[in-house]
């Protein structure tokens, strides 16, 4: 880029030795970053690599623990997002930050509306909005239209216009295209390129490798809160970039995987052409008894929706589900858990979906299995007690008693209660939604053993995890989702971190040759 020469001496924005810790977790460590005017700078990294923290520090949302930031070579600290905005740093976040019931103009000028006699000057506000929309290449959006009436892609344009209205010098886009279709993405790209030629510095965060290849001038890769490398775009292959993003050190003990037996029976769980809006598209999969099948891919590619759809939670899901080869209509969790399908779902958020925190350990444990221990709706306390004791022993749940609120237990033990409450029903199909998130390593290991024991006992297990090591260590097969579709199936030795990440990013370079056994 020729524009790079303009700022050859010192960058527009520089970050040096910036660190941030949340409790004991280090989110960012000794990060450095140079942002030049008139360039698009791509930030790459896995989930939890520190990208979000970096942006939040730049935008004044959180304060860094140590390190310094320089703007135009001057030291600068932001006490609030407003301060960062005043200094010329604007953010377009991945979750849309617009207020649906207000008009486009109201939203664009919401942070600092033009005032006249203390009241909002609507005419001036409209002028500001029109100018910002024009700059964002969205002149067709009427400033007085209500945001809720606009389609998602138009809202994203309003979001960009809103960021531009503060006349920023640095524009940060955090996954700004993840909600857009290919056609809309092309429009956004044209706008971004024009902004670059106008001399803006753009910081672009995305998981989509081909977007980065098209847009970026410079790339910086983050891993585990550190920046691993910065390089000019196009000087590294996709494969090399993926190598840079992986390479965490972990030593979990996974139980050995048994050799896969060929079973003549129909698969325990099968779904065909499952769809749900534009979140799930044409998903077909099968899980045999005794098999642990993983769901991989980046966060939010439809894995959670898939598990919920199978469990009968999502209204309007299309396609068919077969249990043991028999077509079934699963319209609600009550149907899913019934003996004909005997499904269990370990939900994503144990605090709101898995448990009733103020209720006792006992009440939580037996909650999903009350129909097993009651007769005519009346609970048989002896039977309940027996089942609870059995589960507490089986999973080694550490609790001061069964009559204390479950919220008083540690995260790992809470998760054990969630799993135990479903194991009481002796499920034949177990769906797990990221069950090891936020729990300690010891409990994680116990869970890996448990999964394998369940599978050996004949259960079919479908297991979504955001941790690649788990997928590699636990699963017989892994299905990788991207944008609501299964883009790749990995089996046996082919399940490698490299293959998982490459297919998660949906890059299609030489990886497949390397892994073909």
């Amino acid at each position, binding site marked *: 880029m020729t524009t790079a020469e303009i700022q050859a001496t010192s960058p527009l924005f520089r970050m040096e030795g910036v660190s941030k810790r949340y409790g004991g977790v280090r989110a960012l460590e000794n990060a450095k970053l140079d942002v030049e005017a008139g360039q698009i700078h791509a930030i790459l990294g896995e989930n939890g690599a520190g990208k979000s923290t970096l942006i939040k520090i730049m935008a004044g949302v959180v304060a860094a623990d140590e390190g310094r930031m320089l703007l135009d070579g001057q030291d600068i600290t932001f006490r609030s997002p407003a301060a960062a905005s005043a200094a010329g740093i604007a953010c377009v976040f991945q979750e849309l930050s617009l207020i649906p019931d207000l008009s486009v103009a109201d939203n664009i000028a919401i942070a600092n509306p033009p005032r006249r006699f203390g009241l909002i000057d609507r005419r001036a506000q409209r002028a500001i909005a029109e100018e910002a929309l024009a700059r964002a290449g969205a002149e067709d959006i009427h400033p007085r239209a209500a945001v809720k009436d606009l389609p998602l892609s138009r809202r994203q344009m309003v979001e960009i216009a809103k960021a531009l209205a503060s006349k920023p010098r640095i524009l940060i886009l955090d996954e700004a295209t993840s909600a857009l279709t290919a056609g809309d993405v092309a429009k956004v790209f044209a706008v971004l390129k024009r902004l670059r030629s106008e001399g803006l510095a753009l910081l672009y965060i995305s998981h989509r490798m081909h977007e980065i290849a098209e847009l970026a001038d410079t790339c910086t890769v983050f891993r585990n809160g550190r920046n691993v490398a910065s390089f000019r775009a196009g000087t590294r292959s996709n494969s090399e970039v993926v190598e840079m993003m992986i390479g965490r050190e972990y030593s979990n003990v996974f139980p050995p995987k048994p050799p896969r037996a060929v079973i003549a029976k129909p698969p325990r769980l099968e779904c065909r052409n499952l769809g749900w809006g534009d979140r799930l598209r044409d998903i077909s999969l099968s899980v045999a008894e005794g098999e642990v099948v993983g769901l991989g891919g980046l966060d939010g590619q439809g894995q959670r929706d898939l598990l919920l759809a199978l469990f009968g939670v999502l209204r309007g899901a299309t396609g068919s589900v077969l249990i043991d080869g028999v077509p079934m209509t699963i319209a609600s969790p009550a149907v899913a858990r019934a003996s004909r399908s005997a499904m269990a779902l370990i*939900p994503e958020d144990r605090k709101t979906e898995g448990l009733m925190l103020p*209720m006792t350990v006992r009440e939580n444990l*037996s*909650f999903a299995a009350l129909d097993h221990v009651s007769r005519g*709706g*009346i609970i048989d*306390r002896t039977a309940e007690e027996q089942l609870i004791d059995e589960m507490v022993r089986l999973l080694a749940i550490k609790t001061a008693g069964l009559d204390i609120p479950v919220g008083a237990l540690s995260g790992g033990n809470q998760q054990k209660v969630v799993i135990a409450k479903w194991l009481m029903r002796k499920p034949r199909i177990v769906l797990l939604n990221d069950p090891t998130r936020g729990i300690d390593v010891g409990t994680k290991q116990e869970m890996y053993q448990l999964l394998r024991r369940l599978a050996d006992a004949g259960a079919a297990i479908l297991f979504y995890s955001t941790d690649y090591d788990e997928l590699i260590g636990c699963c017989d097969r892994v299905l990788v989702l991207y944008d609501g579709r299964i883009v790749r199936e990995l089996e046996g030795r082919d399940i490698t971190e490299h293959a998982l990440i490459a297919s998660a990013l949906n890059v299609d370079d030489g990886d497949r040759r390397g892994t073909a056994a």
Partner: protein
Amino acid sequence: MSDTSEDRISIRTRLPAFLRRADPAVLTAFGCILLLLLLSSLYSSNFLSLNYLLQQLKVASFLGVVAAGVMVVILLGHIDLSVPWVMTTGAMMACAAAGFGSVGPVIAIPFGIICGTAFGLLNGFGVAYLRIPSMIVTLASNVVAQGLMVVYTGGFSPQDSAPPPVRWLATGFLIPGLPNAILVWVAISAMMIFLFTRTAFGRAVYGIGNSERAAYLSGVDTRRVVMIAFAISGALSAFGGVLLAGYSSKAAQAMGDAYLLPAIAAVVLGGTSILGGRGSYLGTVAGVILITLLQSILSVMQMPEAGRQIVYGVVIIVMLLLYGRTPPNR
């Protein structure tokens, strides 16, 4: 919840264990009852006489029956504002049924309760299936019930008097010296305690009150539970109305108006969270007795009506503030 399973008679023999496990709100409410009686006995020793106390329990039993139903709905995290006119409907329909010839007096009580259950099911359907906030649905059905009763009576007090079985249930004596109304309340209380502590339905109510999402994902048919809960509330409101009609030997317009706030206040004073999911039935019993005593003592002391209302309201606010300070611990 565990403390409610204790048999009330065994409280004395197992005091230490009970005290350790009891809900602090329930203990506070019972403590306030004792304090109130103690203070009032300084004014007049009649407040401690068996006759006075039985009379108060009898009056309390009408509120107690209504509050039991309201509690089920509050535990879900909902509210039932249709109490006043569902009560009136129950009372008027029971009296009306007396005119159905010779079977009339026999079917009077069940007919009144069935009418209340119908309104409860209507509320439950609106909340569970149509997803309308309970505050709106129940307020609306209260007005509908009022309208229907005005049409039925032409706006005047109905002429039918309460049939003998209704009067006997409210004022008779099955056991000499113990008014039947109290027996009815005790029987309903026993059923409620059983429902809350020993049935899958009871567990589901607490579960939904704490996290409807978690209960649904656990495979509970949450909509059915909500329907049934509102039906129970409607049935018990109407039953309370029937008892009240028996007590005053006839139904009257707006006879239930004085019961909505006391019923909700009794439930909340007894330590049930207005947000749902937490509370024990014994607390509601304590709340009902407390509120009835407070009203009675203030009127015996010949405080003017306005002053009574003010004291009554202030006491409720102060008690709720006290509970708000206690950590959420059940």
